[in-house]
């Protein structure tokens, strides 16, 4: 058994974020994501959830407070999946997936070999030589996930990645993502506005209020480890959803 930690530890300490023009977006929020946790972040649109991801990604800095990351000194430990897959349209799927490795200096052939493996894990083996415009939305998202996984990240950041997909594809990808996480056990911070998605995917859910964002609820999702579609029909599922819903719909949520 490898003793290498597979997940980064992420802590937001009293984060404040101001934007020019929009004003205060995040109002003194603190929470911690333990290594290997799958945390979903819920909240109304525009409340600043994506900003948390950007702070965690190092693409932005807080106006006050600190983002503490313990990555166990692994280079390129973070990956990001956007809502729109954002693949490079002029590259084939396999080359898109290989991109992060190419950027670190690995040769194209080596990178491609690794990309083939990543392709397999997202069930896209036949689509390797196609171009993004030839794929459906769901396949593009799978490719984006494969790209995110190729660097074996210890922190996976996802910004409403399945929001633009149809329900069937969404449910399938949620299942696949959960299985991948169970295999890799990297830390995942997943932003969504769908309560059922949050309950299905995560081990812990954080609910934010409307702008300026405050922490409303931080709760464990106590459900089975391996989850499938049938789970959604069960009463435990509804109960968990209710808890999150109430936090969402509370008067504080939209103040």
């Amino acid at each position: 058994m490898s003793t290498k930690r597979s997940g980064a530890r992420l802590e937001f300490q009293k984060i404040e974020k101001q934007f020019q023009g929009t004003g205060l977006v995040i109002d003194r929020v603190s929470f911690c994501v333990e290594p290997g946790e799958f945390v979903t972040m819920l909240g109304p649109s525009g409340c600043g959830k994506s900003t948390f991801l950007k702070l965690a990604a190092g693409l932005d800095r807080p106006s006050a407070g600190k983002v503490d990351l313990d990555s166990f000194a692994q280079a390129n430990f973070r990956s990001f999946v956007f809502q729109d897959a954002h693949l490079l349209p002029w590259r084939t799927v396999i080359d898109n997936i290989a991109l992060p490795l190419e950027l670190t200096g690995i040769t194209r052939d080596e990178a491609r070999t690794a990309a083939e493996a990543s392709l397999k894990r997202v069930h896209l083996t036949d689509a390797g030589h196609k171009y993004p415009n030839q794929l459906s939305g769901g396949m593009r998202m799978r490719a984006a996930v494969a790209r995110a996984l190729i660097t074996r990240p210890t922190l996976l950041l996802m910004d409403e990645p399945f929001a633009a997909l149809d329900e069937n594809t969404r449910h399938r990808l949620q299942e696949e993502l959960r299985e991948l996480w169970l295999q890799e056990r990297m830390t995942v911070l997943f932003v969504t506005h769908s309560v059922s998605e949050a309950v299905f995917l995560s081990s812990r859910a954080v609910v934010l209020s409307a702008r300026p964002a405050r922490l409303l609820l931080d709760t464990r999702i106590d459900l089975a480890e391996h989850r499938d579609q049938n789970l959604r029909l069960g009463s435990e599922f509804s109960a968990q959803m209710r808890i999150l819903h109430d936090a969402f719909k509370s008067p504080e949520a939209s103040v």
Partner: protein
Amino acid sequence: MSRLRSLFPPLVPLIGFVILFEFLVRWGIIPSYLVPAPSEVVSAILEIRSELFAAAMGTMTAAVVGLLLSFVVGSSFAICLSLSEFARKAFYPYAVFFQTVPIIAVAPILVIWFGFGQPTVIASAFIVSIFPVIASTLLGLRSTDPALLDLFKLYSARPLQVMWRLRLPYALPEIFSGLRIAAGLSVIGAIVGEFIGGGGLGSLVDTARTMQRIDQVFAAVLISSLIGLVMIALINYLSWWALKNWHHSERGEDV
């Protein structure tokens, strides 16, 4: 077959126009020393076909070289400007100067600097065609999808990698669009340069005009338009080859 069929609609007004003009001049309604009948233009082409061909080759060579220079210098300049906001603000206004300078007034000065013959003609073609290249390349480079820029930032890509693997491919459709405009302009620039510097179709037009041979003037003008068309067709082909896999403009989605 459908490609040939799409040629048919534009041919209809052309054929109608040619027939109409032939009759107008034959019946003396329009005197032939003002506007030659289409048949006279054709016979003029045949009459001076060897000089026309030699002249056309000269003009086309100068136009192509001028365009190549515009592409190399113009896109390099645009790339440099795109790297620094200050540089862009400082130098771009001077690039506009190339667009507005009246080439027909500048050409005699070009002769003093470059002498008679091809160097002046090429210089003239260059000056006239460089601005569209700069403008479109710069626009393309500055329009990169911000999410993709974030992606590259996340993977700690070096500026050279960002330019080569992201910004330049992203800018290609815009660059080709600028090249198309520049191609037509380079022919005009070459001919203006030839008025003063000698050689090519410009010289032929000037001589024919002095000899009051309007039919030869029209013949030369027709051939010069053909050169422009050939050059644009070439660029269209390159554009198709480069963009066919991924850009909607070459995939025939919106025409």
